[in-house]
């Protein structure tokens, strides 16, 4: 399985249940406008967390991949929930800049995860030790982003 397919599957894996949950929750009567905004707000937060998990896990295991595929895979993870994010903006839940800043965090996370894998593959020649180290560092990155999610959400204005 190449990285692009992996990116597609991982995006579907969170977006399908999220869409199911969201559309089931959308009781679109006129008195629930505030609730709709909250729902889309929650959906955006879940999307960004899922995207971050996606880009970190994408570079967790070494997969035969070209540089172009790597970029396409990250772009796919970023672009995949665009229709949902657009709906979120249309519903007034979030403005464009926070969504863009949130996506920037996802991109930087992807680049960091990619950098960790590339860097360590040059430093550590032993494949077993290298994979262990990559895994440990990327899980640490994941935990850090989760633990400090309020910080970067606040920075992005989410």
């Amino acid at each position, binding site marked *: 399985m*190449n990285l*692009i*397919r992996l990116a*597609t599957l991982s995006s*579907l894996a969170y*977006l*399908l249940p999220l*869409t199911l949950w*969201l*559309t089931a929750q*959308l009781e*679109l*009567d*006129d*008195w629930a*406008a*505030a609730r*709709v*905004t909250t729902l889309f707000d929650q959906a955006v937060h879940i999307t960004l967390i899922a995207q971050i998990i996606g880009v970190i896990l994408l570079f967790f295991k070494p997969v035969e991949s070209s540089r*172009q595929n790597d970029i*396409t895979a990250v*772009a*796919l993870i970023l*672009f*995949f*929930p*665009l*229709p*949902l994010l*657009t*709906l979120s*903006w*249309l*519903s*007034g*839940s979030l403005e464009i800049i926070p969504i863009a800043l949130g996506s920037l965090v996802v991109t930087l996370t992807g680049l960091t995860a990619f950098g960790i894998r590339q860097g360590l593959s040059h430093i550590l020649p032993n494949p077993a030790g290298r994979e262990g180290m990559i895994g440990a560092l990327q899980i640490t990155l994941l935990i850090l982003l989760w633990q400090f999610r309020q910080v970067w959400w606040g920075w992005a204005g989410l």
Partner: protein
Amino acid sequence: MHAGLLGKFQPGRTTEIGVEIVSSHAARADLSISDANGRTIHHLQLNEHARKKLWLGIKPKKDGSVTVTLTAPSDKTLTHSITLTATRLPITLVSIAPNERMRSTAQLKTTQESVIVMLSSAGFPHTTQGYGAVQSVITDLESLAALEQRQSEALGQYLAGCGILLLDKASSSVVERLGRSAGCGGQLIRSYNQLSEIPQLLQQLNGLRPPKLPESKNLALLSSNQPHLAVPLYLFGYLLLMVLLSSLLKRPALLLALPLLTTATGLVVWYGAGGQQLTLWAEAETGDPIARLAAIQYSGGDRRGFQETNFTTDVVITRLENPQRSTPIEHREGNDLYHLTSNTALFAPVRYRLDGIVRQPHRLSLILDNGQPIVRNTGTSATPAGRLLWKRNSYALPALSPDETWHPEQQGEAPTTPAERLLSRRLSFNGAALLIPISQEWGGFAPSATSTTGWLVIRSSTKSRS
């Protein structure tokens, strides 16, 4: 700047303030009112060295405060605040001959159900909003004759909305003449000879007053809530296409085009000026050419974008959103034209409640003959079909041709639609009323671009009920 009704107000109700502006030169200016209803901007034209007196409807905040700001180009901004005194009880406005005032106060205090505001005729409200907390008016013909035109119009609107008026020693012809243009068949206008009659008369007339129009929450239930299938279709359709394309495409990089195309489609469909919707509920007594009206105006909600609505009729507009976050209501001088603008989001329409009076004769009469309802078309053209609500049951009322009468013969059904249920709750067990769907053109009330859903309720006349 000073407040009407001696600065007394009932929380949640409208009242009025008088603002006097003197300008040293001719200029356009904006007068901004900040109250419990958010911001309302009045666009004014000021003339050189001319004194301009305005009476403006307001809804004071809980603490009674209202802030008025005057902004003129190239001039400083002037800001004044005024604080009104809250009263829990509705107001009885008294304007009678000075020698009678002391005695009338003593008499009225025995009722204990309202706050008495003693005024000269000059203190009568100048706007419909000025009567927001007024439950009854006790006055004499001299005071009525001394009213300015604007005050007379405001009093006329108050009476049309079934307000109580007690007149000191007025002849029956005067009462009858006033009653012709008043609501509730003019039955809430009475004459009295002795001050001692007032408490009993007030009690009696209060019992005759029709119930208040439905609350906004109940009116909102009447709106047609179409399920928004477009959103699930859009999202699931996109996911399905993504799955299909990812398995079909030989160049997976092309997959990136689909989210962008879907996003563009979403923007085309859901971005731009949205629709306007009006849910309208009007109530009239049989034979009354006046209907009291409450409506909810929905702006947008089906799209994200800028919405604009104009109202040319004199209505009291109340925001149902957070007033502090909403765009101001604009009021253009001279022609009572309200200009409502807002930036709305998808699924989140901006809502306003509108209260007013519509003078529109209806053709159906409903009389309770020995407790049995009889409906008659008194007009010259056929009436639309509707429902009769009687004894908690709903009956299908057919379209009636001129002079045709109808009475329920078959067993009624339990009220099913939200409008029937709402009306049923508003009727006493033995009371009867007709529920007639009304169209966009009814009363000339709805702006032309607005889709209207509305009902006219015709109650059996108070006389018949009593």
